C-alpha cells in the first residue's frame, strides 16, 4: 500500500535547503523530550488499562514531527493542537506534572477536570485547549494570526491536525482565509496514514496532502516526519516566510501512528502487522538515537541514563498527580460564563440541597 511506503526523500523533493538544523545541544534536548514523551505514552496506556485514567491517545511514532516543529517556534507563537500533541506541549516547556494532572482530572488540572484526557491547554504556553471535533482549531489559528497581523507582531500561529482533518470543513475554510488574508500561519499536518480505520489513500485522491495548499495560493511542503532535523528546518523556513509577511505554509509531515488511535481502538481490525513492522523500522526515536551514537553524542550508558531519568520523572508526576485531591463538586457550575447566571446559581443551590458530591450524597 502506498501509505506504508512514503518517499524517504520527501524532504529533498520539497526543496528544503540543508540550512542550519538544531545544534548538538538542542538535538540532545530534543532526544530527551522524545524519550520523555515515549515513556509517558507507555505508562499512560498502562494507567488506562488499570482504570487509573479514563482514556489515552498515544503519539507513538510522531515524536520527531512534534518536537521538531515545536522547537522551531518561539514562546510568543500560538499553538492550536489537536488531542495528540503531548510532545508539542513538553517541547513548549509545559511541565509533565501539568499534563498528568489533566489526564487524571484532579484539582491541580488547569482545565479543571472538564475534558477527557489529552485535551489539555496551557495559557502560559500559548497552547490552546484542544477539543474533540476534527479540524475546528484550523480556522481559529487563522483568526489568531489575523489578530497578530493587526498588531504587527512577529508571531505565527500553528494549528496541528492529522490526515483525516484535511477532509474537514475548517481545513478548507481555514486555508482559504489564510490565503486570502496572507496570515502568518503554519498549517502543520501530521499525516500518520490512518484516521482511525481509514487509510490515507481513501481520505483523498490527492497525491500528497501538501499539494492542497496550491489551490489556496500558498506553498505546501512534504517533509519526512521521522527526521527531526528535516521537520525543524521546514518549520524554520515556513516561520521565516510568515513573519516576513509572505503568508502561510502547509507542512505535511509524513509519519506513522505506531499505536492505536486511542485506548478505545484496536488497529488489528484494519491494518496488517507487516505494515506496522515496516514503519517500526523507521521509528523516529531509534533513528535519532542512531544518529546521535554515530556522532559520538550518546553512548549506551548515556542513553540508558536518559531513559531512567524519563521513567523517574513520569513516575514522580503520576504519583504527585494521584495524590492531588479531586475537583470540588460545585466546580461543575463554574466557567460556563464569566459569572454565574441566576439560573446556574439556582441549580447550584439545588445541587447543594440534595447533598450531591458529599459523603453519602446522591
Amino acid at each position, binding site marked *: 500500500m502506498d501509505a506504508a511506503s512514503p518517499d524517504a526523500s520527501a524532504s529533498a523533493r520539497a526543496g528544503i535547503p540543508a540550512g542550519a538544523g538544531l545544534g548538538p545541544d538542542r538535538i540532545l534536548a530534543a532526544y530527551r523530550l522524545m524519550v520523555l514523551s515515549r515513556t509517558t505514552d507507555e505508562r499512560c496506556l498502562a494507567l488506562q488499562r488499570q482504570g487509573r485514567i479514563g482514556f489515552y491517545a498515544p503519539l507513538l511514532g510522531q515524536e520527531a514531527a512534534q518536537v521538531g516543529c515545536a522547537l522551531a517556534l518561539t514562546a510568543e507563537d*500560538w499553538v*492550536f493542537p489537536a488531542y495528540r500533541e503531548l510532545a508539542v506541549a513538553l517541547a513548549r516547556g509545559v511541565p509533565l506534572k501539568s499534563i498528568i494532572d489533566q489526564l487524571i482530572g484532579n484539582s491541580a*488540572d*488547569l*482545565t*479543571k477536570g*472538564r*475534558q477527557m484526557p489529552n*485535551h489539555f*491547554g*496551557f*495559557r502560559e504556553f500559548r497552547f*490552546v*485547549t484542544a*477539543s474533540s*471535533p476534527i479540524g*475546528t482549531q*484550523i*480556522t*481559529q*489559528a*487563522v*483568526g*489568531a*494570526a*489575523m*489578530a*497578530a497581523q*493587526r*498588531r504587527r507582531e512577529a508571531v505565527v*500561529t500553528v494549528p496541528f491536525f492529522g490526515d483525516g482533518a484535511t477532509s474537514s*470543513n*475548517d481545513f*478548507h*475554510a*481555514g486555508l*482559504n*482565509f489564510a490565503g*486570502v488574508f496572507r496570515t502568518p500561519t503554519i498549517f502543520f499536518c501530521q499525516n500518520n496514514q490512518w484516521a482511525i480505520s481509514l487509510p490515507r489513500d481513501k481520505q483523498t485522491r490527492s497525491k500528497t496532502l501538501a499539494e492542497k495548499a496550491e489551490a489556496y495560493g500558498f506553498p505546501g511542503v512534504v517533509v519526512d516526519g521521522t527526521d527531526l532535523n528535516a521537520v525543524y528546518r521546514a518549520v524554520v523556513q515556513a516561520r521565516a516566510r510568515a513573519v516576513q509577511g509572505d503568508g502561510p505554509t502547509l507542512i505535511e509531515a509524513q509519519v506513522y501512528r505506531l499505536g492505536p488511535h486511542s485506548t478505545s481502538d484496536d488497529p488489528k481490525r484494519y491494518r496488517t502487522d507487516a505494515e506496522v513492522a515496516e514503519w517500526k523500522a523507521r521509528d523516529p526515536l531509534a533513528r535519532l538515537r542512531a544518529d546521535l551514537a554515530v556522532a559520538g553524542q550518546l553512548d549506551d550508558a548515556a542513553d540508558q541514563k536518559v531513559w531512567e531519568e524519563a521513567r523517574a520523572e513520569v513516575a514522580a508526576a503520576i504519583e504527585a498527580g494521584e495524590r492531588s485531591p479531586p475537583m470540588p463538586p460545585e466546580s461543575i457550575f*463554574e*466557567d*460556563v*460564563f*464569566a459569572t454565574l*447566571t*441566576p*439560573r446556574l446559581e439556582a441549580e447550584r443551590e439545588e445541587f447543594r440541597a440534595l447533598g450531591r458530591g458529599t459523603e453519602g450524597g446522591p
Partner: protein
Amino acid sequence: MTELTLVQAVNRGLAEAMRADPNVVLLGEDIGLNGGVFRATEGLYKEFGEQRVIDTPLSETGIVGTAIGMALNGLTPIAEIQFMDFIYPAFDQIVSELAKFRYRSGGQFPCHVVIRTPYGGGIKGGLYHSQSTEAYFCHTAGLKVVVPSTPADAKGLLLTAVHDEDPVVFLEPKRIYRAVTGEVPDGDHRVPFGKARLVREGTDVSLFAYGAMVPPTVEAAEALAKDGIQAEVVDPRTLVPLDEAAILASVEKTGRAVVVHEAARFCGFGAEIAALLAEKAFYSLKSPIARVTGYDTPFPYALENLYLPNADTIAHAARAAVQAA
C-alpha cells in the same frame, strides 16, 4: 436622543463600539463597501477601513472560527452572519467551540465573540431567509442569546454585548429593521442583560413576546383593551440570561399567560417559559398556559402570513385564556 430605525440603531451601536475601542473589529460577508445586505454596517468601512471591517470569503465556519481565534488573541470581533438561516455551517464552531472555550479550558481561554444575525419571517423570504431558531442556541450552555425589539434596545443591548465577557448570539428582527422607529439615547447607552422590559401594564393576562413579535402583541393588547381585557406585555429582551423574576411576577399578578414566538412550537422557547410557570407559578395560574407560535412545519413562502402569529391570533388566545377562568 435621536429618532432611528432599528437597523440604524444597530449601525450606531457598532460605530460607537468601534470608536471607543480599536480592538473591536467586524467580519462577515458583504459588510465592507456594500455595507451589509441590510445596510447594518453602512459607512463603517469608510470610517474604519478594511482592517477593521473585514469582508470575508463565503464561509460561515470560517467567519466564526476566525472570530474565535481573534478573540483568543486579544480582539473583540463582531461577526455578521448574513441570515440566521445560513448560520449552520458555523454551528460546530458556535456550539462545540465558542460556547465551551471558557469551560473546557478551566477559565484559561475565555472567548468573547458577538455574532449578529438577522432572523425571522414576514419579508417574503421563504424557507431559507425567514427562520427563527433561537432555541438551538438557548439550549447550549455558555451562550448568551439576545433579541431586541426596539431601536433603543438594539443599540443598548448591542453595546452591552460588546462589553460583556461571554459569547453573545445577537438576533436582529429583520422584519422590523425599518418598520419600527424610536428615540435612541446618544453615546454609550447600555441595556443590561437579564432584565425584561415591561412593555404595557395589565391585570388580566400576561403576554410574553420578543423581537418582531412585540409589535403584533402590543396591537393585540390594544384590541383586548377595547373589550375590557387588560393585557400585560412583557419582552424578556435576553433569552439567556432570562429574567425569570419578571415573568413570574407578571403571572402572579394576572394568573394567565400567553407565550408568543414565530419559531415552531415544539421545543420552542415558549416551552421553557411554560415550564418555568408550571414549576414556579402553578398556584397562581387560573387557566392553562397558551402558546401562539409558528407551526411545526418548515417556514412557508406563499403562506407565510398564515404561518406567523399576528395580532388576531394572539388576541384570540388571550381571550380564550381569560374566558377559561
